[in-house]
Each structure stands twice: as C-alpha cells, then as structure tokens.
C-alpha cells in the first residue's frame, strides 16, 4: 500500500435528500477529493447540534464542513438562518476552546453539485493545511 500522506481530516454534515445525492454523484463521476473527508448525513442542516461539531474538532477532526440545502431546503425557508445560528454558536464554543473559527465552513450543496462539492473539499483541505 502506498505511503499515506497526512491530510487534514474533514467531517462533512450533509442532508440526505439534497446534498447527499450531490456528494454521491461526485463518486459516481469519479471526481476525486481528499480521502480524509468523512460524511455524516442528517435530514436537515438546521438539526446539527453545536456539541457534535465541538466533539469532532476536539477528537481529531481538523475541520467541519456543512453541506447545507440553503434555500432549497424542503423543511423550512428559515433553514439557512437557523443553520447560520448553529455555526455562530459553534464558533463561540470553538473560541472558548481555543479552536480557530476558520475550521468550520458552510456552503449550499445541491443534488447535482458534484464538482462544487469536490472543489469545496479541495479548497477547505488547503485552508486547513495552512492553519497547521
């Protein structure tokens, strides 16, 4: 097996109806991104608890990425607002724990956003590598 390079580990929270299919499509089309990206899917990004984000960052993840539905969310038009609030709260908790707030990022990933997802992962990987 090839020597494993050290890559920043990214935890992605995605949504099972919209951003998951986008991420799956990146795989289907063999659009590559860092293999240190791990995805947990949930019904909606507005259901992410800040404590999970903190748990991930405290237990070895270098960054957390929220692949949100944005305005496409079928649950509520308030989804972007509520998700933003979760990020703000998480960043507050991160600050208290001396974690750089740049370690959390969010973007809307649609059900066909294969390339944008891979690009986000590559960019975030780069950003996190520079934070080391």
């Amino acid at each position, binding site marked *: *097996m090839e020597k494993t390079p050290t890559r920043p*580990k990214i935890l992605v929270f995605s949504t099972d109806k919209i951003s998951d299919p986008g991420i799956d499509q990146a795989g289907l089309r063999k659009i*590559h991104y860092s293999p240190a990206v791990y995805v947990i899917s949930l019904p909606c990004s507005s259901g992410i608890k800040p404590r999970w984000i903190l748990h991930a960052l405290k237990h070895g993840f270098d960054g957390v990425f929220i692949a949100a539905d944005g305005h496409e969310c*079928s649950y509520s038009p308030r989804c972007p607002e509520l998700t933003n609030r979760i990020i703000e709260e998480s960043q507050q908790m991160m600050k208290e724990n001396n974690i750089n707030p740049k370690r959390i990022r969010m973007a809307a990933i649609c059900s066909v956003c294969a390339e944008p997802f891979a690009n986000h992962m590559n960019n975030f990987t780069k950003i996190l590598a520079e934070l080391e």
Partner: protein
Amino acid sequence: MEEKQKKERIGVYICHCGGNISDYVDVAQIRDLAKNEEGVIISKNVMFACADSNQKEMIRDIEDEKLDAIVVASCSPKLHLHTFRNVALRGGINPYNYTQVNIREQCSWAHSDTPGEASIKAAGLIRAGIKKVSFSEALENIEVSSTRAVVIIGAGVSGMRAAIDLAKMGNQVYLIEKEKAIGGNVAKWKELFITGQKGNTIIEALSKQIRELTNITLFTGATIEKVTGSIGNFIAEVNIGDEKLNLKSGAILVTTGFDSYLPTEGEFGYKNNPAVITLPEFKGLIDNSHETLLYNNRKVNSIAYIYCVGMRQTKGENKYCSRVCCTTAIQSSLTVHEKFKDIQAYHLYRDIRTYGKQEILYERSSKNGDIYLKFDEKAPPVVEPIGNKLLVKVKDELTKRRELELETDLVVLVTGLVPRSDSKQISALLKIPVGNDGFFNEIHPKLRPVETVINGVFIGGSCQGPKNISESVQSSLSAAVKINALTKNPTIFLEPIVARINFDACVWCGKCAEVCEYDAIHPLEMYGKTVASVNEAVCKGCGMCAPVCPADAIDMAQYSNNEIEGMIDGFMEKVELVAEAGDKLQDGGEEGIAMKDMPLIWRQLAGCLQGDSKSIPDLAKELGLDSELVTYNLMTMNKYSLVEADKLDDSDEYFSYKLKNIPHVQN
C-alpha cells in the same frame, strides 16, 4: 436521555460490488478489522450484498447467530437502504437496527485514485456504522387511522378532474371553490390548441360528471379558514357565506392555480397609454369583436406583441419562464388572422418556446407572414405614443441590433403566470413551503413531484409553477392516484424518525415550539411540571428543534448524540492496514475470494458444474432457480474467473459454462 443497552451481536457485511468496491478497497483486511470491533459477531465479504442469495444468507445468519443488529457496507443508502431494512425485518430484527455504510459512491469510486487511503477511509466508515448501529434503537412505524375523504382546494380544471377520479376510486370528495363559479381560468378561454375545443366546453363536461357523482360535494363561494390535524385526519374549517363547516379528510389536494402577471404602471407604456394591453385583455378583445377588430372604436391594422413581460428577469423577481405564454400569444395571433382580415403582426421576442406539438403553431404563424424580431433583455423595446398610434422601437438581434421603428395600433404585452395573490395564506394554512419563485414546492421535482413535505398534503396544476392544461391535469391526476393509494388503507404507517423529548431534562422554555415549522410541539403537564410534547404524526423529523434546546433535551430518532458522536469516534480511530494484500485484489479480484465467502447460489452453481459443463437452462432446472438469476450470477462469476463459457449446447442457443478457478467445493 437514558443510557441505552448497546447492541451485542452485530453482523457486518462488506460488499465487493463485483469489483466496484473491491478493486480499490482492501475488503478482506477491512472485514478482519471489523471483526475485532466491540459487539461484532460476524464480519463477511460478499460479492453482491443486494443479490437475492446473499439476502437469504443474511436472514439465515440473523437466525442462526441470533444477531441483534446488522451493518451493510456497500453502495449509497439511496439504492438499498430499504432492501436491507427489509432483510432485517424478514430475519426478525427491527429495521432500524440496521445501518447502511456508503463505501462505493463516497469511498471506492470517489477515491479510486488513492486505493490505499480509500481502504483506510472505508475502515473508518464501517467502524462508524458499527458504532451507530450499536447505539441504534428499535423503532416502530407510527400508526394512524385514516378517513376515506379528500379536500380539494380550487375547482379549476386540475381540481375538477382530480375530484372525478378520486370520487370514482371510492373517496368522499369535498371540492372547495373560492369564486361563485367553477372552472377557474380555463372557463374564460375560447378555442384551445390541438383539440380546438372551447375552454368552457371542457369545464361544462367536467361539471356534468361532478354533478352525477354523488360522493363529490362542491362548495362555491367558500374559503378555508383553518386546517388542523394531520395525515389521515385533517379537519378543514370552511366558511360558506355565514355557514361554518368542519370537513374531515385523510388528505388534502391543493389546486389553486395561478394569477396572470400584471405589468407595473409604465412598463412598456402600460396604463399610461390605453393601446397597451396585456395578453389576457387582448384575448377578451378578440372574443368580443366580430368582423373587424376594433379597439376604442378604432380599427386595428397592426399589432406588436412584446414577449416575456415580467418573466425571465435576470435581475427582477420572476426569473422563470412561464411556459405557456409563447404558445398563447402565437395562437391568439393566428386566431386574429382567421377572424379578421389584413392585420400585420410583429412579434418582439427573446426566445420562442413553443415546445412539443405547439411548434406547429409557430410554423403556421411564420407562414402567415407574421414578423418575428428578437431583442435582448438588456435592450428591451421602447413604446412611445405617436399621434393616435404607437411607435415601438426595437433593436433586432438578428440584423446586428439595427433599430427598427414599428408603427402599430395596439401593443400586446405577453404576460406570464405568477403565484396567486392568496398563495401565501394557503401556504400558511397548510404549512406547505413555497419556492423562491413563490409557487408551492414539491418534495422532489423529478421523483416526488406532487407530494409536499407535509404528509398528506399534495399539489396539482399550476399552483406549483406555470403549466398548460395538459400538464396541469397530468399532475393533478397523478396526485389523485397518490392520494387514493394513501386513503384506501384504513391505517397509515409513518416513518418513526421524529423528535423525542427527554422529560427529565425538559423545563419547557418553548424555544423548540418556536422554531418548529409544523406546529408539532406543544406544552404538556407531566410529572407535576410543564414539558414539551411532540405530535408524532405531524413531526417531520427535520431536527430543527434539537439544537435550539438549551437543556439538550431533544434527540432525533436515529440521530441521537450517542449515534452521531459514536460515528465521529469511529471515523477517528487509527487504522493500521497491511500493504500488498489489497493490491492483489485490484487485478480482477480472484485471489481474494475464498469459496466459503461466496454466496450460496455460487456454491450451488459450482457444485452442479463439478466435472461437466452445463447450459443455463439445465442449471436453472437442476437448481430449481429462475434462468435469469442463473445468467446474472454466472456473468459475475465469469468476471471473477470462477467459471468460463465452454461451448454452445445442442440447440445452439445457449452457452455451456464450466468451472475455471475453483479447486474444490465445500458443501
């Protein structure tokens, strides 16, 4: 939340997916790693986890090994989540004690460029899956009783047509119309394209059928004041004049239709100049004129149609195309030529979208001598009064943007469809989401086009977005069938993914109820204090309420703190993989497959092929299996060089197969 009993007898199945996974991920090593995880009793590699033979083997394992949870690491849950939930159920364990791990779309395929790291990631993903399943709870589908009745809001062509079918299928239908007359927009229209029928003829025919069906109750001049309840048992409070009625129904169909776009004052001279009118106004004018087309008592000799008014605005509010306006404008122009003589028509368009059969109209219009001039959105035509007439200046895109000046008697603004002005009220009543365009939103535009996120509330026709009559009726009829599939059962089963309250921790601050879009959370007196309680039939399981709880007293079923944080821990544990073993698998994979790991059907086929080559029909007969199943399995066995084609059988129709790389067969 109370500490749950962790699962102790977990079965893990890691799929090769015929090489799609095993060509990049070292499935054999990962299987061995998974075996060491806490609670794991069985860890197996399978060629195709979804194959019928493997499903049967899993069921046997569940029974023989008394498994209490299963993990399948294969493709995306989009494909086989329900397949394996069913396997769990058939084996006698709760379908929610099953976790699907996506090691194909999100691992072997995505990281086919780095197989070593893909293997490490797959190991992490599987471990997370094992942790998640070990904290999983058995969940029972929520059962609700259902009323065999449907409320349809809006008696236009869509609502009327759906009402007839729903009634014929045995539902009591309450058809509610705000106006005094039924038929909506279609009732106002004359000849319709393709059939040449008049709009009101169609409406009259539908109306006659509705009158004949005793299980349709039509309310006109009626408005919905309030909707309570949930799928299976909605109660709609309807106002009819002074009377108030409570209608009980199992489902609600919204077919409220559209409004026509009304140009703002001064938009292409609208309202400032009386000879600038909208397309619906123009249609009225055609219908009411005979022999000569008169407008304000003056004969109309030339007409300029300006397309896409209020539509397709890159910077404005309505970004969408209204689909029907090009066809309507061109058909109106054709009607003008048929009805009145010597009228010159200029069509100032951005793009012509007479899709499908409607293209015939465009062709006919061009042959009639209508002049089509293409303008750019950034340089729209300018309308100015000139004496009794109008001067329309347009920069023609197809002649290098040369400015042309057209003197016309009438300017028709080809306006499109916008959401009804009362759609916000309807949306608030039923809590159905509206899109950016203001029309009602379906769950999925392609795969679930008539359902909304509110269980039991469906949408049909142009309240969902611009549609012509055929498209409107198609969607409302499809909603009718979906509704009947729901209401025909006296009991409805709902997914148990809902919010759960930890009553010990809850102190009722009301924040959860505040963010809930569905009004699913209400205060409840319990154990001498006020706590939040969730109406499971209304909760959509979005999880929005969980992060806002200051006491962290809300967990979503299947997404509890234990499950999510367990997954995170599972991803993070260090994975040590031995080199080489994985690489062998990458060229064909035959090295890695031990006979005992093969699906039962392969072993049976190999057993039959001992010594002699046999054809597919013979094998199917011998094993009592479907010949397609035999073909499918032989093909994959062939890919793994376990069998090979030998010769054609006596009938010259089928190839015989013989064993290739199987040294001996265990029974």
